[in-house]
Structures are given as C-alpha cells and as structure tokens.
C-alpha cells in the first residue's frame, strides 16, 4: 500500500502534513486496549453498580417512564439495515429508513391531530427550544411566555438557547396546580413570540389546553406551543383540537429505553403554515422514473446543508433509530391499545393518588385531574423518606425540589405510574411510604 501511495513509511504521510509543533510526541495516556470479553466484564461491573428499574420497585418519572419496551423493537433496532446506515442521503438505497420516517410522521400527526410532523428532533426539552426558535423565525417578537408548570429542564433549556438570540423568557406561575389563567392572559401581549405550556404539566395536572390556547390568541398573536406526553394522548384531547400551533414532546415513553436519559427522541408537529419553518428532516412521498412510489428527504431548503446561515435550524444528525422505535411502539399498541393503556393509567394513577394521599403525613399537592403521574406533599424531609423507602427496595418517585431547586417544591414527591406497576405494586408503595413517613416524623420530633 505504501508503494502505491509513493511513500516509504506511514510516518512519512504524517510528517509531510502535520507540522511538528502540533504533533503529539507521546502515547495517549489511556489504559491499554482490552479484548472483547474484558470490556464486557468492565462495562457489566459498572452496570452492576447502578440500581435500575429492574432492581427496585420504581415510581420515578418526570419526563421519562418505565414502560415496557416490546422485544420486537430491540430486534428491529438491532437489524444492521436500521442500525448502521447514515442519514438517507441516497434515497434509492434508503427506502426502508425513509418509509419509517414517513410512517413515523403519520403516527405523530395522528397523535397530535396536527397536519405536519418532522422526522424527529433530539429530545423533549430541546424540542421546546426548537419550537421557540420556529416562533422567533415566524414572528420576530421579543418574548417567550412559559407556564411554570413546564419541566424545569425545559425552562432551563429554553432560557439557554433563547439567551443566544436575545429573547426574554417570562414565567407564569401556577394556581391550584395548573397555569394561572389570569396571570397567563396578563403576561401575553403583542410582543409575545410564543406562549408555551405543558400537558399534563410537570406536577401531573391536566391543563385546560383549549382555554390556555384561546387566552393566548386573545391576548396577542403568539405561536402556541404545547409540550405533551405522547402516551397521555390516547385519552387526552389532542393539541390540534385545542388550538395549539406546535406540539412537541419527549418520545421516550414510546418504545425507548430509559438509558439514563438518552438517546430517545423529540417529536415535533405543527399546523400547516409552519411547515417551511420546521427544523430537521422531513420525509416526503414521490415517484421514481418508472412511476414507483418512493420516499425522499424533502423541503431540504429549510436545512443547514443547503441554507447554511439561513437555515431554520442547525440540526443535522437527529434520532432516526429512536423514532423507529417510536412508530413501531405505536403500531404495537395499535388504535385500540393506546386508548386502553391510557384508561389503565388513568384508573391506576387515580387509585394510587387516593391511596397515598390517605396516608398520615401525605397530601395531594393539587386536586386537578391526573393521568399518569401526580405530586404529593410529604410531611418530612423527602430525601430522608426516599432513603428509607430505598432500603425496602422501593423508589417512591422524584424529589421535586432536588430537581427544580425551587423553594416552593420542598416536600414535593412526584409519583409516576406505568402499566408495569400493578395495584399490588402500588399497595406495596403505600405501605413502604407510610412507614417511611412515620419513621421520619418520629425521628424529627425531638425526644
């Protein structure tokens, strides 16, 4: 090979290109390479030091949920044909991936009752930020108004990116567990670029989405953006039916593993008028020279590789494989299944909330309807109570203040229910939590 290149040594190739001053004159200080079995053992040992949802009875949620991932999804994601290709730049040999995107877009449009969807963005919170950027491009107004009921990570992400292009972010507080409608209407005006809320909100409460949308439109002309939980959309009025312009969300609950937070995908759907400002890939239908139906990446003039500094987003690699899991999961659930699942979660979540709120030292944070998750206020130190539960193999949920850093969240526990948490599991949680709260109360009472 060297002879063909016309050099005497491999070194010569580098010597002729990299100036000595910037050459690394030493070996990298990294451990020696290992054989496959040893790497496996090392990574297995690390995994063993994590307590997964397989190792305890977990009620953690707050954006990512321990739903069952059907085995066929693993199989599909591990097929070389889906796992290893790049973005489908050559459509003739990428019809599989492109058709998956097209089907995925169809499923997201159905879920959200909105007419257009892209083929995925990174994940939930950054999807909201991406929607905000769409609003900025759309109306060049100066402020985002967001409900304080959004996930703290979402608000933080939105602030980070909005700061880049000089946009203000104004938070509207909650009242009785949901976005305060008066404050919401007051906050929105002609300078509001987007009005953004979560459905259900971070504390599990179902917002009156239609009312929020209408109020926003009444108070100005913002793009109304909702961050929605996709599983809840089996029973919940769809964003498209509530006057929402752009619906985005975290796709993990749809057939994606927890993976300590990623990779998953963000979904992004909108009204028709926003189509040409959407970020990311969009697959579209067309025909080949022989008239066969086929799919291509379309409307690429929105994208960075064509439009460069004028692109609607800088996104390039997104989350195609995770979106495949998403559409395969929705297909697996099916038209009836998604409704049944929603009803099951409603019933179990209601049961769990009532049962736990009946314990001494435990009360509901709010009375709003909940679907898959709910917030409680505990009489005692949440971290300490959670530690006591953990000793019993139960993770009772998220310590909200630890996540949000907000003083008003002190004592708040967020409990998530999935189809994997049976009534018996909920009863066990109830017993363990009751004991933990009682013990913590005793411990904190000076003798």
């Amino acid at each position: 090979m060297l002879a063909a290149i016309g050099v005497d040594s491999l070194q010569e190739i580098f010597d002729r290109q990299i100036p000595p001053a910037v050459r690394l004159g030493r070996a990298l200080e990294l451990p020696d390479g290992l054989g496959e079995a040893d790497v496996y053992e090392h990574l297995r040992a690390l995994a063993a030091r994590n307590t997964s949802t397989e190792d305890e009875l977990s009620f953690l949620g707050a954006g990512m949920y321990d739903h069952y991932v059907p085995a066929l999804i693993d199989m599909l994601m591990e097929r070389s044909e889906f796992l290893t290709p790049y973005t489908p730049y050559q459509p003739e040999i990428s019809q599989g991936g492109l058709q998956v995107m097209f089907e995925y877009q169809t499923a997201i449009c159905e879920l959200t009752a909105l007419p257009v969807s892209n083929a995925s963005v990174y994940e939930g919170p950054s999807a909201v930020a991406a929607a905000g950027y769409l609003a900025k491009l759309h109306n060049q107004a100066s402020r985002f108004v967001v409900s304080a009921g959004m996930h703290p990570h979402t608000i933080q992400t939105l602030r980070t990116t909005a700061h880049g292009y000089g946009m203000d972010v104004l938070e509207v507080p909650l009242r009785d567990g949901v976005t305060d409608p008066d404050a919401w209407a007051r906050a929105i005006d002609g300078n509001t670029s987007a009005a953004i809320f979560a459905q259900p909100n971070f504390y599990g409460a179902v917002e009156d989405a239609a009312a929020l949308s209408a109020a926003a439109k009444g108070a100005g002309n913002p793009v109304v953006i909702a961050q929605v939980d996709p599983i809840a959309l089996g029973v919940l009025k769809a964003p498209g039916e509530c006057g929402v312009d752009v619906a985005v969300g975290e796709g993990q609950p749809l057939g994606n593993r927890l993976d300590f937070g990623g990779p998953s995908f963000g979904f992004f759907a909108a009204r028709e008028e926003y189509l040409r400002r959407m970020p990311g890939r969009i697959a579209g239908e067309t025909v080949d020279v022989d008239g066969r139906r086929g799919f291509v990446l379309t409307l690429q003039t929105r994208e960075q590789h064509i439009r460069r500094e004028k692109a609607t987003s800088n996104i390039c690699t997104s989350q195609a494989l995770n979106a495949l899991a998403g559409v395969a999961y929705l297909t697996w659930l099916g038209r009836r299944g998604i409704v049944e699942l929603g009803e099951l979660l409603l019933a179990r979540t209601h049961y769990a909330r009532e049962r736990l709120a009946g314990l001494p030292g435990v009360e509901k944070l709010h009375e709003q309807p909940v679907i898959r998750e709910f917030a409680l206020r505990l009489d005692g130190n949440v971290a300490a109570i959670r530690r006591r539960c953990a000793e019993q193999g139960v993770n009772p949920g998220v310590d909200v203040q630890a996540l949000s850093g907000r003083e008003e969240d002190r004592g708040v526990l967020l409990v998530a229910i999935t189809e994997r948490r049976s009534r018996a599991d909920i009863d066990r949680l109830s017993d363990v939590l009751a004991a933990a709260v009682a013990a913590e109360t005793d411990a904190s009472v000076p003798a």
Partner: protein
Amino acid sequence: MSPIDENHLHADPGIESHHPSSGANGSVPALVAAGVRASPLQLQAATTIFQKGAPGRRAFICPDVDVPVLDASEFLPERFRRSEGPRLPEVSEPEIVRHYVGISKRNFDLDSGFYPLGSCTMKHNPRLHERVAALPGHARLHPLQDPERAQGALELMWNLQGALSEISGLPHVSLQPSAGSHGELAGVLLTRAYHEDRGESRHKVLTPDTAHGTNPATVTMAGFEVVKVATNENGGVDIEDLRAKADTDVACLMLTNPNTLGLFDPNISQIAEIVHGVGATLYYDGANLNAVMGLSRPGDMGFDIVHFNLHKSFTQPHGGGGPGSGPIAVSDRVAPYLPVPVLTRREDGTFALDHDRPKSIGRLRGFHGNYGCFVRSYAYICSLGGDGLKDASEAAVLNANYLLARLRQHGVAEYLPLAYGDLCMHEFVLSGGPMKRELEIKTLDLAKRLLDFGFHPPTVYFPLLVEEALMVEPTETETKETLDAFADTIAAILREASDDPEIARGAPYSTPVRRLDEVLAAKQPVIRQALG
C-alpha cells in the same frame, strides 16, 4: 398473536379484497417473462403500515384494570377527553415484524457494504457495544435515579470525559450535547458567555467557506453574524483574508482540522495566534477527529472548544440519522460557562452532579445527554486503548491515501482529479468537473451508478467550493480488497460512460426504486399517509 379476528371470521371473503396486501407476499406482481430477471424488491409496491391490517387486530395486550373503576369522568372530565383516538395501525405482531423486516431490506447499510461517505466516518460498529448498552444496569437506569445509586453510570461518564479530554488536549468536558451540531451550539453559546462575562459584546463569528452547513447555521441560532473566510490555493485558510477579517467584533473562528477537504492546515498555529490576538476563541469542529487521534490534539493546536461526534470517530452507530452524541471539551478559560450539571469526583472517589455553577450557560437538554451513546463509545475506547486509537487514525489515513493513489491511475485521474493537495488525511475530495465536461456525466450520475454495484457513494457536492465534488472517506475498518474493488468500479464506470454516458445518466437500475422525483416531493409535499 393470531391475526384472525371476529371481523374476519364472519366476513364475506370478498369484503377485504380491496385491502392493501400484507407485505412481501401480499401483492401478485405482474408476471415477468421467462428469462427476464425481475428484482423482487422492485416488484413490491411501497405500502405503509397504515395501509395494512384490519379493524380489531392488535399486538399489545393491555393488563387488566386491577383497581376500582369509577365513572370515567371522575378520572378525567369529558371536556379534556379526546373524542376519537388516534388512528394508529391495527395489525398483529407477525404483521409488524414482517412489515419492518421487509422495509429494512430496502435499506443499504454499513454491515452490507462499503460506505465511504465523506465527513461521516462510517467505521464498523462492533456488536459488543450493543450488548453492553443493553445491560439493564445501563438500559433501564432512570435518569433521575439518585446519583448515589447510579455510581456506575457516573463513573463511566467520568472515564469517558477523561478519555475525551486526553484525546483532545483540553481539560474540561461536558457530555451533554445530543449531536455534533448541538455541540456546536453549546460551543458558540460558551463563547458568547465568555465574552459577555468579560463585558464584551462581539457579534461576528468567522467560518471558512469549506465549513460544514451546521457551522454557519449554528452561528445564526446563537445570535451571531457569519463572516466567511476564504480558502487558499492549497486548501487551507487564507491567512491574509483571515487577518483582514479578524477584528475585535469577532467572537470566534470555527474550524475543522483536517478540514473538509481532508487536509491538515499547516498554518494552524499561526491561525490560532491571529484569532487569539483579537481576543476571540477558536472552535474545533470535531467531525474529522478520526484523522488525528493520538497524533495531534486540538488543544495543542490552540483550540479553546472542541466538539466530538461520538457517532463518527467513536463508532456509535448512525441509526439511519441518529442517535448521535456531541460532547464538548474546553480550555480553562471557557470552563466556568459549561452547561449544568457538571460531573465531579468527591474526595472519597464517588461521583456527584454539581448544579451550582453560577456562570453556566445553563442546560441544553433534559438529563445527562445520550448516555446510551456514551456506553458504546466508552466501550470502544476501552477496546482500543490509547495505542489502538492511534492505530485507527493511522490506518484511516493510510486507507484514504491508498484509495486516493488507486484513483489517480490512468483512466480516472483525468476525469476525477484531486481538488487540492497531494497527500490527504482521512479523506479526500475529488472534482468531477472534467468528468462532467468530457464524459458528460455528472457527479450525481457517477454516484447513482455506484449504487448498482453495491457501493454507497461518497458524499457529493460538498464542500461547496469544489466543482462537482466527490468526498471520499474510507475509514480504517475497510480492507485493501474493498478499496481495490471500489477503485476498479469507478474506473469501470468511467470507461462505460465514455462508451455510453446514458447508462450512468439513467442509473440506478437495480435498486428497490430508481431515481426519485425530488422536485415533485418538495412542490407538493405529501408527508404523511392519507388515512381512510
């Protein structure tokens, strides 16, 4: 399981005959004449999952409602309820499997053949990585698990950060960004925070005209103005142009080195000096890191901020367009602004997440980043070790230069000359200009004709400054035999074109679909399946 349902049992056999067929077997293809080879994939009309199935079919069996059921509106008032559920497919599990296995066969992939897509580093994806990423301790770990009970995950992240730091020569790492362009956004926002913290408001960012599209797009999204820097006749940054444009309005220069021409900029130290001279930061687009691992480090070249594409240099599979992961590494002066949380190691060797970083730009996404990708790339680094990473880069550069040499043979070089330079790093860019003029086929035609031979084409029409560009990145995991076969095929296609250019212009012929009408797709966008 069984797709037989009530509806079918009693349905008239004719009733469903209007239904689209079920997959590979569902349609009766036009009978082909004896002796003519039909490609079975071409005979299958693309049918989406929404066009399959029948009412009542399902895969998911919902657990019984094991709690008291109240009047439904007790749970959720009617006005919040959806009137009609989403019209998802109604199919059985066997139908789902056959559908997606069937359409997977309409994809080309890295496990099926050579994929020299320039700038994308399509190196082999070891299956070990999928195995370790699937361990429940990783895959079923909730991101809000208490750090005390996720120490294995945090240690893995810590180790990966350390490795990326050593490879880049920059001391601080954040794993949070979700892909390369997300890393770019993080980096440019860091630059903004850095300048703002010093009380400066700079509004320009420089990018060379060879830059990847994400660079200028990022600049805009981060609220800066793009200023282009020219490329000199050797394919490097035009130093004079840079000097002219580098003023105190400039916040940053974004560069990749080797650049998108596959060339290492010999003036890199001088460039860094100029940029730092005006108080700007130097940003390294790490998409081309596969050329220099263990050989040369961005930090040592003078870069302040680097992003990595774990899905390129560190072999996280591309998944047909993601997931990826775009960690960043930064110098001391940029470190205070890193996204929260920052991973820290306590005295006792345990790990914690530090949210208390007053100068931080904040968060770029939920949770900790694409941890599943970290697992894979960390496994890769453990497998190769320091020397192995260097070997990988050396082999990548050797393979690229060998393939380049093979393509400089008689019968190819006349039509597809190297655009710039002589040797290359891990990739090289040819110009299809002469081919277009003399053989009357375009780079696009050559690319499409390659499909008929089972090769993924190189990246085409990028970088923009090369006429009819063809950007070739073989990677280190390809054999010499494959490189030879690819070179021979290019030569054969050019010979074929000199006889009859129509063949290439009409290509491909053997793919599941042939050339597709992209204009139609954009003019009348159909981006979802119409439902009945």
